[in-house]
């Protein structure tokens, strides 16, 4: 791959990092332990589905890097290195991995028609954006907040319904994009 293709991918990476920031500006709900319900995980799922594993991961890394630099891009206007030491930072650090897995699956699953693409998107988001992120979050809660595995699991389960809705939203967006841009290769099949 010549340099130019990575140069052409740069705006797409920046675009989805920007989408994450924009989704964070929709008001969030804070639950105990400071774990937020936000729409930003939807951005993680979309990045994986639309860009694929490699570029989706880069988009998430760019976003987290911007947050680390102090830009208030997390929902609620949070930012800076401080957020990476909060009890919920396991979830945050799980986002890049979530985008990677989502993108991976999206590349493997069928995307011949808009319908099959959106079903694949739902599955990919549920495994990557939901399951992987929650696993990382639980690990984070146990390691950083010294909760027990049972406590952490219980806490994380409360978010699953909300996240399943986001998987559905992701599938709907993917469906519309598949219809509106028929030449778009999901899962990063050709970038």
């Amino acid at each position: 791959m010549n340099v130019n293709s990575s140069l052409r991918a740069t705006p797409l990476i920046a675009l989805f990092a920007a989408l994450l920031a924009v989704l964070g500006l929709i008001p969030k709900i804070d639950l105990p332990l400071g774990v937020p319900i936000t729409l930003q995980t939807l951005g993680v799922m979309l990045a994986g589905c639309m860009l694929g594993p490699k570029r989706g991961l880069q988009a998430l890394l760019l976003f987290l890097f911007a947050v680390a630099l102090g830009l208030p891009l997390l929902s609620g206007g949070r930012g800076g290195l401080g957020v990476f030491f909060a009890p919920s930072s396991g979830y945050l650090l799980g986002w890049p991995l979530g985008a990677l897995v989502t993108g991976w699956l999206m590349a493997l699953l069928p995307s011949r028609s808009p319908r099959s693409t959106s079903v694949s998107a739902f599955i990919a988001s549920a495994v990557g954006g939901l399951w992987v992120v929650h696993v990382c979050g639980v690990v984070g809660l146990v390691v950083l907040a010294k909760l027990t595995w049972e406590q952490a699991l219980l806490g994380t389960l409360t978010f699953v319904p909300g996240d399943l809705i986001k998987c559905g939203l992701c599938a709907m967006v993917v469906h519309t994009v598949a219809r509106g841009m028929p030449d778009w290769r999901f899962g990063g099949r050709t970038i």
Partner: protein
Amino acid sequence: MGSLYSEHRTWLHGVPAGLKLLVLALIGTALFFTDRVAVLLPSTLLCGLMLASLGRATLGAAKLWVSLVIACLLVLGFHALMHQPMLGIVSALRLLSTAWMGVALTLTTRYTDLLDVFERWLSPLAHLGIRVDRVALQLALMLRFIDHFFGLWQRLDDAHRVRTGRPGGLRLLAPLTIQMLRSARRVADTLELRLGQ
């Protein structure tokens, strides 16, 4: 879209970004290797004092560090209930001190300065073929796209309201994404032109 950087100058603003980042990294790592309250308690108090010493500059991040305090109180409460108060205290102290240091860094350092430090520290990696200079480009593009998104969302929302009388809400997410994807293609053209030659 602004940043958390505070325009109220404090003593910490004058300290070079690289030094602040280094201190945070070293102390933060060191704290994670100790479980002794005798070390954690004074360090947490010190960090709290340092943050408080920034005075008015902390107003911008009030929401941030208050939510951190609440989170740690909850952790304490949980462990107290489980009859393991020491465990809770240790983790709460550790989290508070590192998080507060992080907040102090964010409030007193321009993100462009941090970016410069990052580029300098990682420049040796350029020999391995990693494009470190691309990061600044991607960051800049991200900020531009955030502006662009908002403008576009507003226009799509206006068009929706005019036609249906209701705000567009999440319904606009898909058309917004499509338009932004097309936009990204044109930006890619610009980049190829300006940097690819």
